[in-house]
């Protein structure tokens, strides 16, 4: 490992941490946007002054905003995500299992969608402007325009109602046999895959086309290398960085897509938990879960940056 790579990676990681810190400020400010205070909006207009005062004291609303922010931040750094207002439960313990459920779902969606997208993207490039390419582009256009719940409920309608082979409601719990768990997540996993597949495929196609059109590929063709040699020696090392980038960016999309998909299939994950508590205006939960989602998103973007630095052959040899 040469030093410029290490330096570049350290820079990206530091930038990511800085960004996460700034995002935590933004989320905190976002939940303090109201000119009035949170206590009032939780309890409503009819609240008695005593109840208001108690809730304010409990939430520390009498302190200035920056004190509350640092209190919140240091709590999170020590693993204390706060207490839910509505259920009085510790947020960290309530989301532990849900976080694993969400990651489990996203993991399998990624395992299926990433290779599929790359293969389809390669096919689209191989048969460029032919019927297969047109078909794939048309599918991509349709799938970026379809709302997730349309795909989701269509899947339920077909595979759980018309042909009842898969469950339409995905209940999973700890200690469930692996195969049954897979059967339960089959439909939400398909919905998620269809959601990110088209975008990933389109970007893969663009990335490979971009490389295939460069001058050094033409040179390689002209000096008589076989198609396989061109791909192995010239195209692949240069295309891998953009492809890794495409994949990680889409994994980040997956993290967001999970929110709607979990609600469709009543899947016990983080997204469902977030939506429930937004509706109940449970601010501490929303702050904590929002921050976790943002952290995963930023983490994946940093991974994308680092991976493309590592995969860049130009940076491997110090000048």
């Amino acid at each position: 490992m040469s030093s410029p790579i290490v330096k570049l990676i350290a820079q990206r990681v530091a930038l990511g941490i800085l960004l996460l810190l700034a995002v935590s400020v933004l989320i905190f400010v976002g939940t303090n946007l109201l000119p009035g205070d949170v206590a009032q909006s939780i309890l409503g207009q009819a609240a008695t002054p005593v109840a208001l005062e108690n809730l304010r004291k409990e939430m520390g609303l009498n302190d200035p905003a920056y004190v509350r922010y640092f209190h919140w931040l240091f709590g999170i750094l020590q693993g204390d995500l706060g207490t839910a207002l509505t259920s009085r439960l510790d947020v960290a313990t309530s989301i532990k299992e849900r976080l694993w459920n969400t990651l489990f779902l996203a993991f399998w969606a990624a395992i299926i969608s990433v290779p599929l997208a790359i293969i389809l993207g390669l096919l689209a490039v191989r048969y460029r402007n032919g019927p297969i390419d047109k078909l794939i582009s048309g599918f991509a256009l349709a799938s970026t325009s379809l709302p997730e719940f349309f795909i989701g409920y269509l899947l339920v309608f077909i595979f759980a109602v018309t042909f009842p082979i898969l469950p339409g409601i995905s209940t999973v719990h700890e200690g469930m046999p692996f195969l049954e768990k897979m059967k339960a997540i089959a439909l939400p996993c398909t919905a998620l895959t269809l959601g990110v597949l088209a975008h990933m495929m389109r970007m893969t196609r663009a990335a490979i086309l971009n490389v295939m059109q460069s001058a050094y590929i033409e040179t390689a063709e002209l000096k008589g290398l076989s198609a396989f040699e061109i791909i192995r020696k010239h195209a692949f090392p240069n295309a891998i960085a953009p492809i890794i980038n495409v994949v990680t960016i889409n994994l980040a999309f997956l993290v967001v897509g999970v929110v709607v998909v979990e609600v469709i299939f009543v899947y016990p994950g983080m997204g469902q938990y977030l939506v429930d508590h937004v509706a109940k205006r449970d601010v501490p939960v929303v702050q904590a879960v929002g921050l976790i989602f943002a952290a995963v998103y930023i983490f994946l973007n940093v991974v994308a940056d680092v991976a493309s630095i590592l995969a860049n052959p130009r940076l491997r040899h110090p000048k």
Partner: protein
Amino acid sequence: MLRRIPTGALIGLIITALFFLVAIFAHVVAPYGLGEIAGGVWEPMSAKFLFGTDNLGRDLLSRMIHGAQTTILIAVLATLLSFCMGAILGFTAAVVGGWFDTLMSRFVDLLMAIPTLIFGLVVLSVLPSTLATLIIVMGVLDSTRVYRLSRAVAVDLNVMDFVEAAKLRGESKWWVIFAEILPNALSPLVSEFGLRFIYAVLFLSALSFLGLGVQPPEADWGGMVKENKDGIIFGIPAALIPAAAIAVLAISVNLVADWILNRTTDLKGGRGNG
């Protein structure tokens, strides 16, 4: 002129126009009122109820026609807001430069570091659920993308001869932004408007589907999917129809926007039709 439009774009244009017309004349077109209970719960499609009835026995077609108005109105207003904000700030950043540009650009980077839906949910957890809040939240969050595009376009335009000439004439910054840069930046912005509009429709539908967007008794398409989703498991497709309407609208606007984008590729300097 019409003959040069490709078939796909033409179909998209016609369907989009149809949707807008239905939305504008909703009260004339709809056979029943928005909250009018006209029949039994989840009646199948029939001559009387073209799309059947919903979870409370209201005519689904009429509700969708009224819902088209709500959905399209909110999406249009949010898109307009995001364009006014994004374009004005983006042009100003490019023309003024300096600390204003740096500050705005870094702030937009920060906003875009959080997924839009997540930040939208965070903010909506404390804000009152009114249509105005919804439009402002959607518009402000979406203006980040418009800001980036308009700033990029304006940075290129800002060094062109006619802009330099206007500056040397002693025109004010506002003149440069609105009379020199804006007219020349319009074509790339128009196709982006279509894409942002689709995004607004999908975002609003997702919020309403999650129960955090348009609140009853008002109704939009995403909210109708939510109301009828429990029927799916019993084989009642009522929830699929408003969802399909969202999809059809999004696809047709996409077809039009793609066509405009391809026509203005030279101006954008990228994204060819390869």
